[in-house]
């Protein structure tokens, strides 16, 4: 009988990723990247599968997942909002933009709205310090932001 028959589509894809990196040193981060592409985020069950496949402690996987803002423990929204809290954006008042986003969306950093439309994350420097403060919604970049811009931008989505 097929070994993978009782696995769902995503589990099969994840198994392929494990097979691909089977003999690679330092495979954790690339494996997590691909796992997140498959699932959209990295729930504990996926992290456990990664730990078992790479034969490393689950705590090590969790440590790496929580270190990089790219990796998410929660499902992301259809529109992923990333507000830059790097030094330049921060001194230009990115914190106030973040507060306004939280107020408008009713969620905290790392969360998604109930309808799954938006998710909110803080990130460190998107490389556009010249137009600080900056946020990105999926691939759209919004610069030189003021608190009053937030509501109008969100309406576009």
């Amino acid at each position, binding site marked *: 009988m097929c070994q993978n028959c009782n696995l769902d589509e995503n589990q099969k894809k994840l198994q392929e990723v494990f097979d691909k990196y089977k003999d690679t040193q330092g495979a954790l981060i690339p494996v997590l990247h691909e796992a997140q592409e498959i699932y959209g985020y990295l729930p*504990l069950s996926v*992290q456990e599968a990664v730990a078992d496949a790479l034969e490393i402690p689950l*705590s*090590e996987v*969790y*440590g790496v997942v*929580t270190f990089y803002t790219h990796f998410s423990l929660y499902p992301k929204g259809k529109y992923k909002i990333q507000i830059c809290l790097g030094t330049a954006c921060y001194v230009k008042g990115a914190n106030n933009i973040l507060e306004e986003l939280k107020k408008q969306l009713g969620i905290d950093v790392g969360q998604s709205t109930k309808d799954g439309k938006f998710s909110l994350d803080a990130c460190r420097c998107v490389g556009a310090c010249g137009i600080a403060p900056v946020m990105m919604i999926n691939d759209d970049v919004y610069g030189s932001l003021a608190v009053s811009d937030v509501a109008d931008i969100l309406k576009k989505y």
Partner: protein
Amino acid sequence: MNLLNVTIDGIKVQVPEGTSVLDAAKLANVDIPTLCYLKDINEIGACRMCLVDVGGRALQAACVYPCSEGLKVITNSPKIRDIRKATLELILSHHDRSCLTCIRNQNCELQALADKLNVRDIPFDGAPKGLPIDNISKSIVRDNNKCVLCRRCTSICNNIQTVGAINVMERGYETVVSTTDHRSIADVNCVNCGQCINVCPVGAIYEKDNTQAVWDAIKDPDKYVVIQTAPSVRAGIGEEFGYPIGTPVTGKMVGAIKKMGFDKVFDTDTAADLTIMEEGTELLTRIKTGGKLPLITSCSPGWIKFCEHEFPEFLDNLSTCKSPQQMFGALIKSYYAEKNNIDPSKIFVVAVMPCTAKKFESDREEMFNDVDVSITSRELARMIREAGIDFRSVEEAQFDNPLGEATGAGVIFGATGGVMEAALRTVYYILEGKRINEEALMPIRGTEGIKEATLKVAGMDVNVCAASGLGNARKVLNMVKNGEKNYHFIEIMACPGGCVNGGGQPIVPASIRNKIDIRAERAKALYSEDKRATYRNSDENPFIQKFYKEYAGEPGSHKAHELLHTHYQKREKHLKNK
């Protein structure tokens, strides 16, 4: 080997290639302050306390900077002192500085460093971390408000023990030593070995304190309070009272405990002798009847939990013998109670152990209520101080009888290879009718992590192995699994070096650990007691002989099994509750 010429503060020394500046400085008798550094365990240059000038643009961390030919190092200058001090002030800025009530008050490496660097003011007012204290585990308490992120604990947990219960989580200011999903240490794969406690420079990890429960029992006139002390306690507790490492203080310790109000002061070693009788019999039975081999010892509760999480396929290999701590409790509440006409429900058994996992063990449902409270060597030392007893001037005393007569075989349980040696002394005698030549047992003495020997017993080659430290246990079990090794008998101790280096032993600061091997020194104390003992084989213990004659019949009997044996359970590999 290539020798390099280096100059440390003007002092010329020759060092082998690969030597760090920190080690070279030691040769030159130059003291460089460190905080995160712990020899062989954590050498990562994280805390920046050991910054030195190596002539380059930036100061370098001496603990990880390798010497090169002709290197000139300056370890102390106004600039270096200023930078070190500012770094320490930043570490202190958000450290919970409740030193007076801290478990590590006066035994804190951060406190000592602040004094050494003459920090008298903390100019940076950091936001308090306000993190919750995790005190759900039976063995270990974690207080991240005290943590300095040195990573010694995560290093020993991951690299030496290969448990990986804790790691560094999150990032930046939120960085924290934690578990997966920030769960309680009780709800992950922690085995309670407590090695993290022994390496923590501050009071961020410590044992669950049970001293009040002991005082309460002593105070209760209805309770018959019995205390037992494990072999390794006598080899370590002297350090709490200023004795050099490796000083056996059995007489002083018993004398001090006798002043505290216990009804009886007994020796766990007697139960260790009993363990040997049962485990030796189990080994012989398994060999004779084709039972599951290798037989693996079950005295170390840290190892047991590790096996339950990581190697459930070996659960049937574990000896079904309870550990000496539990056998002792079972014995007191049955045989001893009956003989002395005491209601077992009134007996309160306190165990003093070099171990934090023993707390978890005494609480296991499989162990009934054999032992009421298990405290560490450190907790006993605290109680002695609290009772106003001047340990050093106490008159030496002897354990109470009948459970105070133990043999040298019981004493050496505390060192890696000791249980194996004790068992082989008796098993050899049963099979050969004469005592084993001690020389044959030398390969399983010493502090190496994995030791092997093959002994000729009754015309058979018996292959034995002793492993200490769970990373070494993992290696041995994988070799057995792959068929690379064919052992009959394996001793596994969770802590590197065995119980003498247990997670409940006195904490030795890095400044001393970096210089001497505490495992070897404390083990010497045990072997010296063994040498002096009247009886050196468990089967010679008069109490044990009486116990079987009057009560249990013979080792491995039905009654012995009921009282002295147990079973184990498979546990989730990662998280207790999904």
